[in-house]
């Protein structure tokens, strides 16, 4: 009789235990995320994102409403667009008027015997357009620099957080490597853009203005070279970053995957019943870590978009308008003024690509840290 009771008690306890395990694991999963949130300070990340991302809400709420938040960002940008367009069109109109004047002078004196006198009108027109465009370029450059700085600050807050969450999720080696690479290359880009790219853009503008205002074809080679140099510097940095990240990611990612598998099998094989529970709890921590990682990652990417969207619009509108004005001017006056306007548009394009390169690199590093398998 007592043996039957004893055996029933053992069977009952085994049954209860086996029922209890999934409940345990589930409870672990829910509280694991809270535990992680306690450990990892996401408020620093949210603060570093700045005012532009206050509307994005907190990190925890983001994953459930990503497309909604993205639509909100797009709406905000679209609503800011008319004001930007209005100022841009005003600028373009003034430039068109100045060039109409110069075209007028050109046609007036086309039958004249001398070319030197009406050339002075073209020179004055070129200088006026440049003076006007330089104020615009100054503000665009400061907007671009500010967004690059904001991107760097934000990345300094988000990348360590993301990499520590990824390390908690089991990808210690690769996350460390990727964080180091991203930090290195982003710092490199920041110093390069301040000390090399912005002076190059100024130099390119100066040569374009000198070439168009005072004539002379010798300067056209120099300006083309400067433009090529600027684009090459930016392309080289981005390509090197992506290349380095891919290689190091692949190498370290496989190591991490092997480590995780090894840890799991070791756990479950050494401890028979408890090992299963512990291993399940561990994977729930891993899952919670990965979901938190994707939340932080999504928040990071949306913040990058929010930081960069309106500056892009502003600089891009200037670029497009200058190029369009150049095409229009080419209709009624050939020669130096359309070339000048087109060159000024290219300078704006260089500013856009400078900001864009930084945004792409931040994006890419965030993406690689989120995935952490392979690249």
């Amino acid at each position, binding site marked *: 009789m007592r043996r039957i009771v004893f055996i029933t008690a053992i069977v009952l306890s085994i049954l209860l235990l086996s029922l209890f395990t999934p409940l345990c694991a589930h409870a672990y999963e829910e509280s694991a995320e809270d535990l992680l949130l306690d450990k990892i300070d996401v408020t620093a990340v949210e603060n570093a994102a700045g005012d532009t991302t206050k509307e994005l809400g907190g990190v925890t709420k983001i994953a459930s409403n990503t497309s909604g938040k993205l639509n909100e960002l797009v709406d905000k940008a679209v609503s800011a667009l008319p004001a930007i367009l209005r100022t841009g069109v005003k600028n373009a109109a003034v430039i068109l008027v*100045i060039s109409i004047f110069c075209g007028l002078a050109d046609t007036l004196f086309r039958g004249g*015997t*001398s070319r030197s006198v009406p*050339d002075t009108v073209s020179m004055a027109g070129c200088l006026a357009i440049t003076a006007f465009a330089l104020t615009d370029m100054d503000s665009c450059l400061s907007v671009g620099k500010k967004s690059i700085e904001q991107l760097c600050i934000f990345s300094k807050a988000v990348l360590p957080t993301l990499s520590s969450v990824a390390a908690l999720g089991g990808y210690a080696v690769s996350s460390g490597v990727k964080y180091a690479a991203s930090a290195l290359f982003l710092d490199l880009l920041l110093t390069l853009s301040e000390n090399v790219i912005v002076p190059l853009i*100024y130099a390119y503008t100066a040569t374009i203005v000198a070439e168009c205002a005072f004539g002379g074809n010798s300067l056209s080679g120099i300006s083309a070279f400067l433009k090529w140099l600027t684009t090459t510097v930016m392309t080289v940095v981005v390509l090197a970053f992506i290349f380095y990240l891919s290689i190091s990611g692949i190498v370290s990612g496989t190591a991490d995957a092997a480590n995780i598998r090894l840890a799991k099998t070791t756990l479950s094989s050494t401890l028979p019943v408890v090992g299963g529970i512990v291993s399940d709890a561990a994977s729930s921590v891993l899952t919670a870590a990965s979901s938190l990682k994707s939340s932080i990652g999504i928040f990071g990417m949306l913040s990058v978009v929010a930081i960069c969207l309106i500056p892009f619009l502003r600089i891009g509108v200037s670029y497009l308008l200058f190029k369009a004005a150049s095409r229009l001017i080419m209709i009624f006056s050939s020669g130096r003024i359309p070339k000048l306007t087109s060159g000024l548009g290219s300078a704006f394009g260089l500013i856009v690509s400078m900001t864009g390169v930084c945004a792409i690199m931040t994006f890419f590093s965030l993406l690689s840290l989120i995935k952490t398998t392979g690249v």
Partner: protein
Amino acid sequence: MDLLIKGAAVCIGASVLALVLKKSNPEMSMLIGLLAAVMALAEALLLFTSVRDFLTGIEAASGISSVFYAPVLKALGLSLAAEFAANVCRDAGQGAAASAVEFLGVISALYVSLPLISSVMDMLGRLI
């Protein structure tokens, strides 16, 4: 259109008369041609006042300071005057005087654009 017809009529009539007087009184013929040119130019400039008002309207609407395109306007006026004077001198057969007036016109336009040049140099020189 009427203005153009009037100006064209004046110039054509004056040219014919100038040709008539060319053999006997060449100086008189040149003066007649000169007078016709002056009158036609004055008519054209009176038309230009409306363009200039349009420009002033744009300046007021866009809030751009006149520092930018005042030199362009002045250079246009200077080159107009210089070209006209040079051609008159050339009509009278004085090529040297004509080129001297042209040179004067170029120098004056440069002088007028000097503030613009210096402000552009300032803006570009901020990288140093």
